[in-house]
Protein backbone atom coordinates (compact mmCIF):
# COMPACT_ATOMS: atom_id res chain seq x y z
CA UNK A 1 0.00 0.00 0.00
CA UNK A 2 1.23 3.47 -0.89
CA UNK A 3 0.31 6.70 0.86
CA UNK A 4 1.29 10.30 0.15
CA UNK A 5 0.33 12.49 3.07
CA UNK A 6 0.65 16.17 3.94
CA UNK A 7 0.27 15.27 7.65
CA UNK A 8 2.86 13.93 10.10
CA UNK A 9 2.86 10.15 10.54
CA UNK A 10 4.43 7.73 12.99
CA UNK A 11 6.89 5.15 11.60
CA UNK A 12 6.51 2.93 14.67
CA UNK A 13 2.70 2.90 14.29
CA UNK A 14 3.21 2.14 10.61
CA UNK A 15 5.49 -0.76 11.58
CA UNK A 16 2.92 -2.04 14.09
CA UNK A 17 0.24 -2.08 11.36
CA UNK A 18 2.66 -3.64 8.91
CA UNK A 19 3.52 -6.44 11.33
CA UNK A 20 -0.13 -7.44 11.44
CA UNK A 21 -0.35 -7.36 7.65
CA UNK A 22 2.93 -9.29 7.25
CA UNK A 23 2.03 -11.93 9.86
CA UNK A 24 3.90 -15.11 9.09
CA UNK A 25 6.49 -13.40 6.88
CA UNK A 26 9.67 -14.34 8.70
CA UNK A 27 11.58 -11.16 7.90
CA UNK A 28 10.53 -7.51 8.00
CA UNK A 29 12.78 -4.60 7.06
CA UNK A 30 11.81 -1.00 7.60
CA UNK A 31 13.46 2.22 6.53
CA UNK A 32 12.62 5.59 8.03
CA UNK A 33 13.97 8.85 6.62
CA UNK A 34 13.89 11.86 8.91
CA UNK A 35 14.34 15.58 8.24
CA UNK A 36 17.89 16.54 9.12
CA UNK A 37 18.48 19.46 11.48
CA UNK A 38 21.79 20.35 9.81
CA UNK A 39 22.85 20.72 6.17
CA UNK A 40 26.54 21.35 5.74
CA UNK A 41 27.20 24.00 8.39
CA UNK A 42 23.69 25.48 8.42
CA UNK A 43 20.79 24.76 10.76
CA UNK A 44 17.78 23.44 8.91
CA UNK A 45 14.49 25.04 9.93
CA UNK A 46 12.34 22.86 7.74
CA UNK A 47 11.69 21.16 4.44
CA UNK A 48 9.07 21.47 1.72
CA UNK A 49 8.24 18.53 -0.53
CA UNK A 50 6.42 19.15 -3.76
CA UNK A 51 4.70 16.27 -5.62
CA UNK A 52 2.97 16.12 -9.01
CA UNK A 53 -0.14 13.98 -8.66
CA UNK A 54 -0.95 11.50 -10.02
CA UNK A 55 2.47 11.13 -11.69
CA UNK A 56 4.19 10.81 -8.31
CA UNK A 57 1.81 8.11 -7.05
CA UNK A 58 1.86 6.24 -10.38
CA UNK A 59 5.66 6.18 -10.42
CA UNK A 60 5.85 4.81 -6.87
CA UNK A 61 3.19 2.18 -7.70
CA UNK A 62 5.31 1.10 -10.65
CA UNK A 63 8.46 0.85 -8.52
CA UNK A 64 6.55 -1.19 -5.93
CA UNK A 65 5.30 -3.56 -8.65
CA UNK A 66 8.87 -3.83 -9.92
CA UNK A 67 10.10 -4.73 -6.42
CA UNK A 68 7.40 -7.41 -6.09
CA UNK A 69 8.52 -8.88 -9.40
CA UNK A 70 12.20 -8.96 -8.42
CA UNK A 71 11.81 -10.29 -4.89
CA UNK A 72 9.32 -12.70 -3.25
CA UNK A 73 7.63 -10.13 -1.00
CA UNK A 74 4.59 -10.97 1.08
CA UNK A 75 3.85 -7.35 1.97
CA UNK A 76 5.02 -3.86 1.09
CA UNK A 77 4.29 -0.42 2.55
CA UNK A 78 5.38 3.04 1.48
CA UNK A 79 4.45 6.31 3.19
CA UNK A 80 5.82 9.61 1.89
CA UNK A 81 5.24 13.07 3.30
CA UNK A 82 4.48 16.07 1.12
CA UNK A 83 4.25 19.77 1.98
CA UNK A 84 6.01 21.46 4.89
CA UNK A 85 7.76 19.60 7.69
CA UNK A 86 10.15 20.40 10.52
CA UNK A 87 13.48 18.91 11.63
CA UNK A 88 13.31 15.33 12.99
CA UNK A 89 9.93 14.68 11.36
CA UNK A 90 9.67 11.50 9.27
CA UNK A 91 9.69 12.12 5.51
CA UNK A 92 9.51 8.56 4.29
CA UNK A 93 8.77 5.06 5.56
CA UNK A 94 9.32 1.89 3.57
CA UNK A 95 8.62 -1.60 4.91
CA UNK A 96 9.08 -4.93 3.15
CA UNK A 97 8.23 -8.44 4.30
CA UNK A 98 9.45 -11.76 2.95
CA UNK A 99 10.23 -15.30 3.97
CA UNK A 100 13.86 -14.45 3.17
CA UNK A 101 15.77 -11.72 4.93
CA UNK A 102 17.96 -10.87 1.91
CA UNK A 103 14.85 -10.28 -0.19
CA UNK A 104 13.40 -7.96 2.45
CA UNK A 105 16.68 -6.02 2.78
CA UNK A 106 17.28 -5.69 -0.95
CA UNK A 107 13.72 -4.68 -1.78
CA UNK A 108 13.69 -1.93 0.88
CA UNK A 109 17.09 -0.71 -0.33
CA UNK A 110 15.88 -0.73 -3.95
CA UNK A 111 12.70 1.19 -3.12
CA UNK A 112 14.65 3.82 -1.19
CA UNK A 113 17.01 4.29 -4.13
CA UNK A 114 13.96 4.79 -6.35
CA UNK A 115 12.41 7.28 -3.94
CA UNK A 116 15.66 9.25 -3.65
CA UNK A 117 16.44 9.60 -7.35
CA UNK A 118 13.41 8.80 -9.48
CA UNK A 119 10.28 9.49 -7.47
CA UNK A 120 8.59 12.65 -8.67
CA UNK A 121 9.29 15.01 -5.78
CA UNK A 122 11.09 18.29 -5.43
CA UNK A 123 12.61 19.14 -2.10
CA UNK A 124 13.33 22.56 -0.66
CA UNK A 125 15.34 23.13 2.47
CA UNK A 126 14.81 26.19 4.65
CA UNK A 127 17.86 27.40 6.54
CA UNK A 128 18.78 30.60 8.35
CA UNK A 129 21.00 31.53 5.42
CA UNK A 130 18.30 30.99 2.79
CA UNK A 131 16.20 28.42 1.02
CA UNK A 132 17.48 26.02 -1.58
CA UNK A 133 16.12 23.30 -3.82
CA UNK A 134 17.91 20.02 -3.26
CA UNK A 135 18.59 17.65 -6.13
CA UNK A 136 19.99 14.11 -5.78
CA UNK A 137 23.74 13.77 -5.23
CA UNK A 138 26.03 11.78 -7.55
CA UNK A 139 26.11 9.12 -4.80
CA UNK A 140 22.32 8.77 -4.94
CA UNK A 141 22.45 8.16 -8.68
CA UNK A 142 25.23 5.57 -8.39
CA UNK A 143 23.34 3.79 -5.58
CA UNK A 144 20.30 3.70 -7.82
CA UNK A 145 22.29 2.37 -10.80
CA UNK A 146 23.11 -0.77 -8.78
CA UNK A 147 19.67 -2.15 -9.59
CA UNK A 148 19.89 -2.28 -13.36
CA UNK A 149 19.65 -5.94 -14.23
CA UNK A 150 23.27 -6.30 -15.38
CA UNK A 151 24.76 -4.55 -12.40
CA UNK A 152 22.61 -6.57 -10.05
CA UNK A 153 24.03 -9.80 -11.43
CA UNK A 154 27.59 -8.50 -11.16
CA UNK A 155 26.80 -7.47 -7.62
CA UNK A 156 25.32 -10.86 -6.71
CA UNK A 157 28.33 -12.67 -8.11
CA UNK A 158 30.73 -10.46 -6.23
CA UNK A 159 28.79 -10.89 -3.04
CA UNK A 160 28.51 -14.59 -3.06
CA UNK A 161 31.92 -15.63 -4.25
Amino acid at each position, binding site marked *: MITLTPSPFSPSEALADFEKEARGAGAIVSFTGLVRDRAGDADVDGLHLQAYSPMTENGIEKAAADARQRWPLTALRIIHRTGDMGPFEPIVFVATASAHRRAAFEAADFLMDYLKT*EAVFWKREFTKTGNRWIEPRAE*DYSDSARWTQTNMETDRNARHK
Partner: protein
Amino acid sequence: MADILYFGRLGDVAGTGAEKLDIPATITDTAALRRWLDVEKSAGGAFLEASVRLAVNSEIVVDPHPISPSDEIAFMPPVGGG
Protein backbone atom coordinates in the same frame (compact mmCIF):
# COMPACT_ATOMS: atom_id res chain seq x y z
CA MET B 1 -5.16 28.25 -22.75
CA ALA B 2 -2.45 25.81 -21.73
CA ASP B 3 -1.75 24.92 -18.10
CA ILE B 4 1.95 25.38 -17.47
CA LEU B 5 3.45 23.94 -14.26
CA TYR B 6 6.87 24.93 -12.94
CA PHE B 7 8.30 22.49 -10.40
CA GLY B 8 11.19 22.79 -7.98
CA ARG B 9 13.63 25.61 -8.65
CA LEU B 10 11.83 26.49 -11.90
CA GLY B 11 8.95 27.82 -9.78
CA ASP B 12 11.35 30.44 -8.44
CA VAL B 13 12.55 31.25 -11.96
CA ALA B 14 9.00 31.58 -13.31
CA GLY B 15 7.79 33.47 -10.24
CA THR B 16 4.88 31.02 -9.89
CA GLY B 17 4.21 27.30 -9.62
CA ALA B 18 1.45 27.23 -12.22
CA GLU B 19 -0.23 29.51 -14.68
CA LYS B 20 -2.52 29.51 -17.69
CA LEU B 21 -0.82 30.76 -20.82
CA ASP B 22 -1.84 31.58 -24.35
CA ILE B 23 0.92 29.92 -26.29
CA PRO B 24 1.53 31.59 -29.66
CA ALA B 25 0.29 29.53 -32.59
CA THR B 26 3.84 29.33 -33.96
CA ILE B 27 4.97 27.30 -30.91
CA THR B 28 3.96 23.74 -31.78
CA ASP B 29 6.44 21.54 -29.91
CA THR B 30 8.20 21.30 -26.55
CA ALA B 31 11.60 22.43 -27.85
CA ALA B 32 10.08 25.65 -29.21
CA LEU B 33 8.12 26.13 -25.98
CA ARG B 34 11.33 25.92 -23.92
CA ARG B 35 13.01 28.58 -26.08
CA TRP B 36 9.99 30.88 -26.08
CA LEU B 37 9.40 30.63 -22.31
CA ASP B 38 13.08 31.05 -21.50
CA VAL B 39 12.93 34.44 -23.20
CA GLU B 40 9.48 35.36 -21.80
CA LYS B 41 10.64 34.61 -18.24
CA SER B 42 14.17 35.97 -18.66
CA ALA B 43 15.26 32.59 -17.36
CA GLY B 44 18.82 32.80 -18.67
CA GLY B 45 18.74 29.25 -20.01
CA ALA B 46 17.07 27.54 -17.03
CA PHE B 47 14.25 26.23 -19.24
CA LEU B 48 16.71 24.90 -21.81
CA GLU B 49 18.75 22.62 -19.53
CA ALA B 50 18.87 18.98 -20.61
CA SER B 51 18.28 17.89 -16.99
CA VAL B 52 14.90 19.67 -17.08
CA ARG B 53 12.33 17.23 -18.50
CA LEU B 54 8.93 18.14 -19.84
CA ALA B 55 5.71 16.29 -19.21
CA VAL B 56 2.75 16.79 -21.52
CA ASN B 57 -0.57 15.80 -19.96
CA SER B 58 1.27 13.87 -17.22
CA GLU B 59 3.50 11.89 -19.61
CA ILE B 60 7.21 12.63 -19.71
CA VAL B 61 8.18 13.32 -23.31
CA VAL B 62 11.34 13.64 -25.39
CA ASP B 63 11.97 16.91 -27.23
CA PRO B 64 10.64 17.89 -29.66
CA HIS B 65 7.17 16.64 -28.74
CA PRO B 66 4.02 18.18 -30.29
CA ILE B 67 1.90 20.37 -28.02
CA SER B 68 -1.67 21.62 -28.31
CA PRO B 69 -3.09 24.89 -27.02
CA SER B 70 -5.00 23.24 -24.14
CA ASP B 71 -2.32 20.83 -22.89
CA GLU B 72 -1.05 20.62 -19.33
CA ILE B 73 2.71 21.02 -19.64
CA ALA B 74 5.06 20.56 -16.69
CA PHE B 75 8.67 21.70 -16.44
CA MET B 76 10.43 19.17 -14.25
CA PRO B 77 13.97 19.71 -12.95
CA PRO B 78 15.73 16.63 -11.50
CA VAL B 79 13.40 14.81 -9.11
CA GLY B 80 14.13 13.14 -5.79
CA GLY B 81 12.29 12.52 -2.54
CA GLY B 82 13.04 10.66 0.69
